């Protein structure tokens, strides 16, 4: 079976064309789901009104307020956080050469949770009863967020330090990450044991990842970091492909593997840390979305990075919308649902495929 000379290039163009079609369909679908998501909730808004409101038409103040102040920030937060977690996951899987790599492999979420617990208990930022919505809230969310973020960065720096001493290999990074994760889990348990019931409730409440926590201001901050990381990762897409072919192949292609690995890890950690610090722990998105995308369009990072971003946004947005409406009048934090969805999806992927 031999193709003529022109055939291969033509078929290859069709092959990449299909991937572009998938990406484009994903983006369109995301757009549609966003509109639907804005329209449903404790107050249902007809789709056409949503579109009018978004386009700036003259609508009742109440409608304007629901769409612009409540629903849209939450929808955009889900999109941006999903994109950030998924893109961090894709890069982690490549640079750690491990299909179980995710934004949380390096213990970042455990450190953030410890940071939040530390802030609640030692700095006294948690634990007043709120009259609306959730029973418990954090009375100084900014301090809690900053402390959670600082502890996430601390873990990252510890991993960087070990990598500098012992070499930037996936094994070192994963092992130090697992050790740090375990250490901070122990630290959190220690704090929780001595916390009073209100503090304990605040700590646990903080750890439920929830997109409703972010207002426009926080969304802006998260977006800046997510966009920066996407640009950085896209710039290095060929290098991740090369590293997938093996460190030696990559070095033979002129890639400074250690530097790409270290900077990729730093950037993925940063984007994860900021999402976790503002929203809490949202599991499985960073692990599942890259694998789902690999199924559809393969491991080529030229398409995989973009595909995972769309997949992450779409999945987190769907989960977030479902979490908001499925148990009305209660609004579940999205993390509960992603973890529920994550396990069966992952097992399905394992059963269906030759490899993950």
């Amino acid at each position, binding site marked *: *079976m*031999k*193709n003529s*000379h022109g055939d*291969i*290039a033509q*078929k*290859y163009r069709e*092959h990449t064309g299909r991937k572009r079609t998938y990406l484009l369909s994903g983006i369109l679908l995301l757009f549609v789901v966003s509109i639907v998501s804005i329209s449903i909730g404790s107050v249902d808004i007809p789709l056409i009104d949503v579109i009018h409101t978004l386009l700036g038409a003259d609508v009742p103040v109440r409608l304007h307020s629901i769409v612009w102040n409540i629903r849209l920030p939450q929808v955009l937060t889900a999109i941006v956080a999903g994109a950030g977690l998924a893109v961090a996951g894709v890069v982690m899987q490549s640079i750690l*050469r491990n299909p179980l790599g995710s934004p949380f492999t390096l213990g970042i979420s455990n450190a953030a949770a410890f940071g939040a617990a530390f802030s609640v208990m030692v700095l006294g930022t948690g634990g007043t009863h709120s009259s609306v919505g959730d029973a418990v809230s954090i009375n100084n969310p900014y301090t809690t967020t900053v402390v959670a973020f600082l502890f996430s960065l601390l873990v990252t720096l510890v991993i960087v330090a070990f990598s500098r001493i012992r070499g930037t290999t996936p094994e070192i990074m994963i092992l130090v990450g697992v050790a740090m994760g375990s250490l901070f889990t122990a630290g959190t348990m220690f704090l929780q044991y001595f916390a009073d019931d209100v503090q304990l409730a605040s700590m646990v409440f903080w750890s439920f990842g929830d997109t409703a926590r972010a207002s426009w201001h926080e969304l802006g901050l998260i977006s800046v970091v997510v966009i920066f990381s996407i640009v950085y990762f896209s710039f290095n897409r*060929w290098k991740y*492909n*090369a590293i*997938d*072919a*093996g460190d*030696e*192949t990559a*070095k*033979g*292609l*002129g*890639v*400074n593997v250690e530097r790409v690995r270290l900077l990729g890890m730093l950037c993925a950690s940063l984007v994860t840390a900021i999402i976790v610090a503002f929203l809490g722990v949202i599991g499985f998105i960073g692990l599942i979305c890259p694998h789902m995308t*690999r199924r559809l369009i*393969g*491991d*080529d990072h030229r398409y995989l990075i973009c595909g995972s971003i769309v997949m992450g946004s779409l999945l987190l947005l769907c989960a977030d919308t479902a979490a908001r409406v499925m148990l009305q009048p209660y609004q579940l934090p999205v993390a509960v649902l992603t973890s529920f969805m994550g396990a069966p999806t992952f097992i399905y992927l394992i059963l269906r495929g030759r*490899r993950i």
Partner: protein
Amino acid sequence: MILEVNGVEFQYKSKEVLKDIKFHLKRNEILSILGPNGVGKTTLLKCMNAILKPKSGAILIEDEDILKLEQIEIAKRLGYVPQRCEPARLTAFDAVLLGRMPHIKWNVSPEDIMLVESTIKKLNLEHVALRYIDELSGGELQKVSIARAIAQNPKLLLLDEPTSSLDLRNQLDILDTVRDVVRNENVSAIMTMHDLNLAFRYSDKFIFLKNGTIYAAGSMGDITPQVIEEVYGVPVTIQNYMDVSVVIPTV
């Protein structure tokens, strides 16, 4: 002269691995690096394109010292085929396209696509061009790996045990491919080899390493049973069969 290696030394931590390595290679020649396990064959090969940095010495490719170049510039001059290529879910076409990476600024040009296409054709890989490389056989994967190195448009190909873990048919197939490329593409090749008979069959020149340095070097006429016995510690005889030298252990 396409390659001149002058006094290359390499040490790992404080242990000296290679010392005073000197040899040269002409265009369209294949050189095999031979020697027992652990003698530093792969280390020498990795020093050749500065994946491992030699402590001292010079490696001149067309009179340019590659040890003074950036890694990406080295990748434009030397194609490296490691012992093992990790199979990813990339098509063979994409995997070969990766060889254009040192030359690509931001995106793939039509010339890159054409070059990949012609490389695939040269290596008779048309039938697997759009298959994922994690579904290919060992021999096909190795060919894709060689095609990637050729797509780099190098002056010199470095191959680390290109036939290890391949069956007889694939061993011959891969080395035929290397020989054809070297003859037709104006490149030279250096391979590390374990199988002396395959090395004799396909190489123009040989280096025998012993104790981290070159024990013997030359073309087929310079290789005697004594050299092989002293390098490997096995008594052998060299016979000629249909114009091909064959090594037979006499133990």
